[in-house]
């Protein structure tokens, strides 16, 4: 399998990125903040209103290094793509299926199968690891409800019913989410998902983790030649990487949620890492963001056995491998899209 390369996260505001030979140069005014060889990178994610030189953008576009610009709080601004070198044949297949509800539903069904299955196993894992800290009986009930939903998902033939079952699964799962927070209960709690803006510490972290996962997934899709902006389940909307959102459904629980929970439970973040704005929006401090990104990079290096390929890969490659498998399915090499079914 391919090697996992690094992602460069530029978090210091007003940093300018320039090309220097085969390196990216980080500049703040005239001051050089650092210099990194580009051949070790597969993506650059820049937070805050920073800029990059056209030379650097061209270099990266040629070599499939994704550059994404986000606001300081993680909202998408722009990304750089080169002359389309993607695979026209593959993309046409993707567009055709995206316009065909029946075929799109078959793929969406596997995305949602992966999502519900993985949520179920997040809960099962908790009952095994912390039987004395959580209400095991309630977890088992919810796990059973998710199993029932899985059966319905497998039998769904319309996008509408899939969405319905997905929503129902989320209701069950969210009901016990708060119990998975085992430490610092007074500062970290989950009473439901709030997104725009996140209204508590946990939601602020979840939003950030989903943003990172979406960027990683979008970059992976583009790498294998797919169009991250044309989805099967999420509808096209300007600026929305719909296919990335589709594909990351199955990874939200096992990748992002578990990551956020572990930061809280290992006390790697504390209440002082958050600020509340006048409107009730909760933001992570710059310091917290750095901690978060560092831990995210470390998580990416951890290895796991891919359930379908049976090969050892790093967590960071999971979005890439799933993109590859999706491409293989679209090309007709596989009978179905194999979701990442974790245990």
């Amino acid at each position, binding site marked *: 399998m391919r090697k996992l390369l690094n992602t460069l996260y530029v978090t210091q505001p007003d940093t300018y990125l320039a090309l220097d030979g085969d390196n990216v140069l980080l500049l703040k005014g005239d001051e050089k903040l650092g210099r990194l060889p580009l051949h070790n990178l597969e993506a650059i994610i820049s937070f805050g209103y920073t800029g990059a030189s056209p030379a650097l953008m061209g270099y990266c576009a040629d070599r499939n290094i994704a550059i994404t610009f986000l606001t300081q709080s993680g909202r998408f601004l722009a990304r750089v793509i080169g002359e389309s*070198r993607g695979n026209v044949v593959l993309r046409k297949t993707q567009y055709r299926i995206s316009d065909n509800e029946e075929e799109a539903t078959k793929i969406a069904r596997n995305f949602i199968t992966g999502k519900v299955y993985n949520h179920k196993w997040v809960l099962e894992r908790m009952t095994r690891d912390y039987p004395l800290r959580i209400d095991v009986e309630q977890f088992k009930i919810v796990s059973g409800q998710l199993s029932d939903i899985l059966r319905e998902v497998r039998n769904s033939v319309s996008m509408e019913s899939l969405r319905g079952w997905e929503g129902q699964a989320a209701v069950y799962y969210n009901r016990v989410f708060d119990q998975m927070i085992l430490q610092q209960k007074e500062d970290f709690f989950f009473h439901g998902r709030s997104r725009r803006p996140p209204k508590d510490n946990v939601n602020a972290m979840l939003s950030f983790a989903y943003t990172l996962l979406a960027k990683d997934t979008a970059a992976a899709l583009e790498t294998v030649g797919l169009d991250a902006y044309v989805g099967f389940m999420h509808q096209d909307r300007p600026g929305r990487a719909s296919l990335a959102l589709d594909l990351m459904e199955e990874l939200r629980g096992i990748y992002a949620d578990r990551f956020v929970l572990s930061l809280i439970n290992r006390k790697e973040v504390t209440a002082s890492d958050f600020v509340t704005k006048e409107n009730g929006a909760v933001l992570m401090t710059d310091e917290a963001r750095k901690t978060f990104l560092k831990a995210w990079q470390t998580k990416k290096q951890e290895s796991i056995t891919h359930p379908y390929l049976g090969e050892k890969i790093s967590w960071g490659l999971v979005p890439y491998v799933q993109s590859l498998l999706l491409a293989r399915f679209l090309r007709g090499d596989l009978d179905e899209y194999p979701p990442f079914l974790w245990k």
Partner: protein
Amino acid sequence: MVVNDEDRYLMLSGLQHFQFCKRQWALIHIEQQWEENVRTIEGQHLHHKADQPFLKEKRRDKLIVRAMPIQSKELQLSGTCDVVEFIQDPDGVGLAGVEGTYKVYPVEYKRGKPKKGDEDVIQLAAQAMCLEEMMLCRVDTGYIFYNEIKHRIEVPISDMLRDQVKQMAAEMHHYYDKRHTPKVKTGPFCKNCSLQHICVPNLMHKRSVQSYIEGRLGE
């Protein structure tokens, strides 16, 4: 409808990929997937010298032309000859703007050493056929220069080889028209393939996804 024939032409250099593995050829030439790796970079490096368009060199009875664009209507292929040598010969053909008659010899430059398979020879034969068509002459012999042994070997352009080229070109066009990337038998040669991360050869032996999902859900 006006059909521009040349739009249908495929890259002659694809023959070597096709001979190595049909799937590799399709991934590169139909799907335009290309992984930069040591092999391709080395290849570019080596080609640099041979890659100066229309540079002519004259050495007594010999005229050397580098990077000559070539094509064949019959094969519907086009490409570039690394080097074409014209050697003065009374049985040869005349060249525009040059005195005398010449015999035509394509020379292909390769990284590495002579391979077990035919891929290099096939490509050379196709170049010879293009040259024949474009210059209305007969090309009986070509050369392949191998960088690792710093030595060129002589290749007779046999009828059998020509038939093989014709057949392969036809097959390539057939896949291309259907935009079809074939599944193939994988093998130890996959280890030397620059596209294995895109192709994922071991996927071709995997059990069905349906049984994978059912298996997991049933546990």
